[in-house]
């Protein structure tokens, strides 16, 4: 595969990643709304869809890794280059890297947004989970074994 094809493949991968990020952000929003509405069903449904989306993202990441490996070889760059380095190397040769640079910039924004939402949701989910744990604790009392509930502790059937 020549350099031109490799650049187009990377552009396509980043474009797919942009669409994936939109889906991901939408799913994170749905989860946040589900938490706000105390709707475990909606939270679960959004989480399942996110799981499928993550599977696709992992597949894209694997494909991207292969493209980047070939590009680094073609451009004489060290292994595992950053996309910014690829864009810089391409710009040094000709105008092939312009669209790629735009895609990269756009993806950075989407990715940052997904990351922000993800972190925020992570805090919310953990906070809610700890509340539930506390509520369980109030009902069941302290576990004499000291093993936290719901993390693989065996329950004495006779207890």
């Amino acid at each position: 595969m020549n350099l031109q094809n490799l650049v187009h493949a990377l552009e396509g991968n980043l474009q797919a990643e942009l669409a994936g990020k939109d889906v991901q952000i939408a799913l994170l929003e749905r989860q946040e709304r589900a938490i706000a509405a105390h709707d475990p069903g909606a939270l679960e449904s959004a989480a399942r869809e996110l799981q499928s989306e993550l599977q696709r993202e992992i597949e894209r990441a694997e494909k991207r890794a292969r493209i980047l490996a070939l590009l680094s070889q073609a451009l004489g760059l060290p292994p595992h280059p950053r996309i910014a380095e690829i864009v810089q190397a391409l710009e040094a040769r000709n105008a092939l890297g312009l669209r790629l640079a735009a895609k990269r910039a756009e993806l950075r924004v989407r990715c940052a947004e997904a990351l922000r939402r993800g972190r925020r949701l992570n805090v919310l989910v953990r906070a809610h989970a700890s509340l539930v744990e506390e509520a369980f604790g109030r009902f069941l009392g302290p576990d004499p074994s000291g093993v936290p509930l719901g993390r693989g502790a065996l329950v004495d059937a006779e207890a």
Partner: protein
Amino acid sequence: MSSVALNLGIEALLAAQTALDTVGHNVANANTPGYSRQSVLLRAGPSMRLGNNLVGNGVRAMDIVSVRDLLVDRRILTQRSAIARLDALSSGLSDVESLLGEPGEGSLSSMISGFFSGVSRLSANPGDTVLRRDALVAGSDMAERFRSLYAGLETLRGDAAARVDAQVERVNQLTDSIATMNRAIGATEIDGSTANDLRDERDELLRDLADVVDVAVVEREDGTVAVTTRGQVLVSGTRNFEMEGETSIAQGVTLRIHGSTQELEPHGGSLGGLYAQVRSVLPERLQKLDDLARSFVHEINKAHSTGVPGTGPFRSLESTHALHDVDEDGAYDDELLAMAGLPFPVQDGALLVNMTDRVTGAVETVRIEIDAEETTVGDLVSQLNAIPQLTAVVEGNGQLSLRAAEGFGFDFAARSYPSSGAVGGSAVAITGQFGGDAAADFTFRPRSSGDVGATPDLLVDVFDQNGDRIATLDVGAGYVPGSELELGNGLKASFGLGTITNADSFELHAATDGDTADVLAALGLNTLFTGTGASDIGVSERILTDPRLFAASATGADGDGGALSDILAVSEASLEALGGSSPIQYVGGLVAGVGFDRASAELAMETEQLLHDGLVAQRDARSAVNVDEELVDMLRFQQSYQAAAQFIQVVNGLNDELMRLL
């Protein structure tokens, strides 16, 4: 915009925290009596205006409210009061039932039957000393049973009164706590919030109070409740009014609210049940038992007092009941006999006093008329003293003493009198015991004149007080003078030699009762039972010591048990004082009444319990915590969060990696 988004998250987190706190609170209190399930009221937050747009502001927990139905809660209070009252009543009646022990070997009815059986056996052989003693011991056992039952009922009443005191103390503790809760709720709700847990706690106190006494509860706008019982205030705002109990022998217990002069008569709750026990249930039973014993003593004594003991007519006798100087003038004579403080009534009638010459056997009967409204103690004593060979004295302690002169004796048997007399020149002698239903006066009148035992067809007609001829006696030729001729109703007449004319006559008074005025039973002269009621009934020590004094005979004749028949007749007599029942029937009624009341109380309690359970189910459908439901909710949250957390970790990891790659 990002700050709005962050705010959305914080509000949501706070709302969720409140919701989950409430779930945990509900679950933790699932087994707390009276806890009402709480739920979170979620409201959308007020929108924020950004430029021309209204932006949502997430969700907020507005209030936590107890899910309750005040009407049902109040009706539950009423039901609890009713159940607690019936429970206490039923328990008290059950104790009375156990005490009565009917039917059973040592029961009162079997003891009464035992006494009459003993008297019945004795009537077959009235002179048998062993049978006399057996009958007296049976009477003594019966009296002991009366006394022990009465004492037992008194003890139950005392116990119930003591428990009333304890319940009063409990009421005061609860009303104090309710007033304290009122204060706390008022202070908490001053900002418009709802003190659900404090209200639950107060409701539980109200339920406890309703178990003790019937209450009406009114909630005020400030969140406090006013509690009243039978229209009197127990709690008003932050102040409670103490209940006070006063124990007295007469009434058992009297209740008041501190500062009130009005007596409080609780109707519901355990206090209401105990109060009813002390004030009505047990006093009624005590009264019935006392009525029975009193009637028994009176009726048996009336029969016994006119009997003649095995030792024959009395030489002396002393009354067991003392006369009272009612007007406290230092003299008994001026007291009306019927109002001289005797424990049993004296009525209009007559007392027969039979004086027997122990040497000749001759009997002289004197009739003393008693007018309940006129005859004084002095009149009676004077008339007794007017009887030859008899002395009557009212002792300093109020007891009446009778003493016969040497060689004479007296009794009060229902004899026919005079026992001897004359029709013209023929001496007449009357023998036998009159068996008529009522006293009667007979007149002997010869149809013609002639000599007894010689003149042919010399007939003597006998007329009753109505002028009806009841017999015609042939005392002419063929009649052996001195031989007895039947008059009917157990009486016989004999005529001596002599001449009679159709102008002659002889009056005979036939008595069925030697004391129709009941003065002997009132005074306690020749009485078998001592005492005046269930608490002090007993067999005369004098007779117990010497069973020959058991006055079995109606005439004094050997082998006569006529007085025993009168005593036995009491067993089946319809006694006015017992509402027309016989003693055995009355005991049966007393026992059945207790059993019926207990069964009724238990049945009513079952019904009230059903109503209560229905109301509780109705309340629980709204208010109670369903732990399973709450746990399922929590588990679903937990699983969702766990799954979400795992994926978010991956999302964040991938995004971090992608950012580094970009």
